[in-house]
């Protein structure tokens, strides 16, 4: 990783790794992710021998441990992979779009919209399970982001700064409304307490499948706008002179990141830091090219999520710590360490 990182050779100069090194780094990240996927299935809050886990994966055994692997660990790992990809890519998109290295999807109101919608679903409509309120979360994230997009658009076009301000304001209003609802409804408060922590445990694959097509569309959109976002990083005027449609790029990017972040939040609840931290690391490794940043984010983010989840499963056995809590614990110090070691990656 160190070899591949962008090197600061002097004030204002950086050495960007070549395509071969970036590709090698990507292969290494892929291998690490595969190892983590295997570990996620192997390690849990109960001790199940690797041979039993392997048996569960390749045979349709009915032994209790094998069934637990198929019933619990395998779906959890798949959920972690999907949510991680979505969070990492949405973080990379929002940072590229706003040219703000501290941006994450939350500032466009995704989390606020999802949380408010889940509170309404639980508190007012009596929805009680994850499968039920995930659609509310998804719809809430989409509606609020569209609202922010509308509020952030001026006659001169859409401005990232105005959009972020609109996101913060809408988030504050919805946050207040959500708090008021929760204070008057203990059931909603209880449900939101655990949902707000962000977890990939106990989510059946039935929660993932309906969201997956949206995420697939968003994935394609993200790579479609990667080139124009590269041009926009040089400045709007230069991007326009290269034939980039600013409005189209922004709208597509926002649709993609909203689908990604909204889908991830609908499945797992709000999970902090992954979408913020991973694109930083991706930029350090891959340099300023968005396609590479996106590709690295797609591989590194689920890795971070799975490492955090594995830690959360073993440190408090037989109980667990939700992955959202662990990513905050792990992510914050790691990000601080990285930022202190290298200059924060600009955009």
């Amino acid at each position, binding site marked *: 990783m160190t070899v591949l990182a962008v090197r600061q050779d002097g004030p204002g100069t950086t050495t960007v790794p070549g395509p071969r090194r970036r590709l090698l780094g990507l292969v290494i990240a892929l291998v690490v992710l595969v190892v983590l996927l295997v570990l996620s299935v192997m390690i849990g809050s109960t001790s199940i021998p690797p041979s039993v886990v392997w048996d569960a994966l390749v045979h349709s055994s009915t032994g209790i441990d094998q*069934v637990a692997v198929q019933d*619990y660990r395998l779906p959890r790992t798949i959920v972690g992979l999907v949510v991680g990809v979505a969070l990492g890519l949405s973080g990379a998109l929002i940072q590229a779009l706003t040219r703000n290295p501290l941006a994450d999807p939350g500032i466009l109101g995704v989390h606020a919209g999802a949380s408010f919608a889940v509170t309404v679903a639980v508190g007012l409509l009596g929805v009680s399970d994850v499968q039920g309120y995930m659609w509310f979360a998804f719809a809430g994230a989409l509606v609020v982001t569209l609202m922010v997009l509308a509020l952030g658009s001026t006659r001169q076009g859409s401005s990232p700064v105005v959009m972020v301000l609109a996101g913060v304001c809408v988030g504050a209003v919805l946050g207040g409304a959500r708090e008021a609802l929760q204070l008057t409804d203990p059931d909603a408060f209880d449900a939101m*307490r655990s949902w707000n922590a962000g977890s990939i445990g106990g989510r059946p694959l039935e929660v993932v499948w309906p969201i997956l097509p949206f995420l697939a569309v968003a994935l394609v959109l993200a790579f479609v706008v990667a080139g124009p976002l590269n041009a926009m990083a040089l400045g709007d005027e230069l991007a326009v002179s290269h034939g980039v449609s600013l409005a189209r790029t922004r709208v597509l990017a926002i649709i993609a990141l909203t689908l990604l972040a909204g889908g991830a939040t609908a499945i797992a609840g709000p999970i902090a830091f992954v979408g913020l931290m991973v694109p930083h690391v991706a930029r350090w490794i891959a340099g300023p090219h968005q396609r590479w940043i996106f590709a690295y984010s797609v591989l590194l983010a689920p890795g971070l999520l799975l490492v955090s989840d594995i830690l959360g499963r073993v440190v408090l056995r037989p109980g667990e710590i939700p992955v959202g809590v662990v990513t905050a614990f792990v992510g914050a110090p790691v990000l601080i360490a990285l930022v202190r070691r290298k200059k924060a990656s600009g955009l």
Partner: protein
Amino acid sequence: MTRTPLIAAFLGAALVLTACGGDGGDDTAEAAAPTTRSVTADNGTVQVPAAPQRVATIGNTTQPYIDLGGKPVAVTQVVESTLTKLPADQQATYKAATNVGDQEIDLEKLAGLKPDLILVQIDDAGFKAIEKQLTSIAPTVSWSLDTEWKEFADAISEAGNTSAALSQQKTQFAEKVAKIKETYGAVIKDTTFVDIARAEWSDPGTFYIADIGCSEIARDDIGLNLPEAAAGQDPLAYANLPYEQLTSLSKYDVITYPVTAAGQPTVPFAEVANLNTWKALPAVTSGRALGVFCPGNNSYGPVLQYLDSLDKALATLPAKE
């Protein structure tokens, strides 16, 4: 707190009106010298009416008082999931009373109902915050949340003057316990049990081992071999266990789980019952997973219903080979 002066003014006015005897219906009660008794509770020794007529129940005292045949004039909110498990006549009694609040009690409304006794079981800090106002309205008897359920029933009965009903319930309880022990003693002697549950407030993908609540009665009164936390440790029920931990239940001969009065898994637990891991447990495959209805465990009425359900469940237990 900002309402305190208003409450004080209201109470003053209420006292004046009461002294004037504006309500003709109270003449008889006022004419007769009130007979009082001393009741000792967690807030000290309190002088209460010998035969209270207008009882207000706050917090967890509502259901036990109604269960003893009491008809409160004022109640605080009972959660829907508890209310629906009460017998129809008790639900009617609850609904006939005036609701004076939930988390926050409407003290003006309570004072307006002119209770002659207030029974309270809420958290200590919450009680301290309103103790003065309550005692200025009527004699107030309070118990802490960790009061053992049988002691609690005795205390409510003593304060509320419902000893006849309590005596009858205690007799029924003793008879049912004796019958279950006698009928199933041989079967349960060498059988290991575990009671698991999942509640509305459980984290997604988790369940817990219920070592408190109704299973305490099964363990302490019936003698079922049920797990419990080590001395000085938090109850096992406080730990949310991931579904993966269902595999650890393989070591128990019998698993009991929560069902509705109709015998169906409760809504929160249905998720567990649908898991393949659950269906693969030895106790489940051998027909030794028993659904038990636990409507409550803080008074004899629901406990008697629980014992009936446990009795029926144990009757389905195949003889141990």
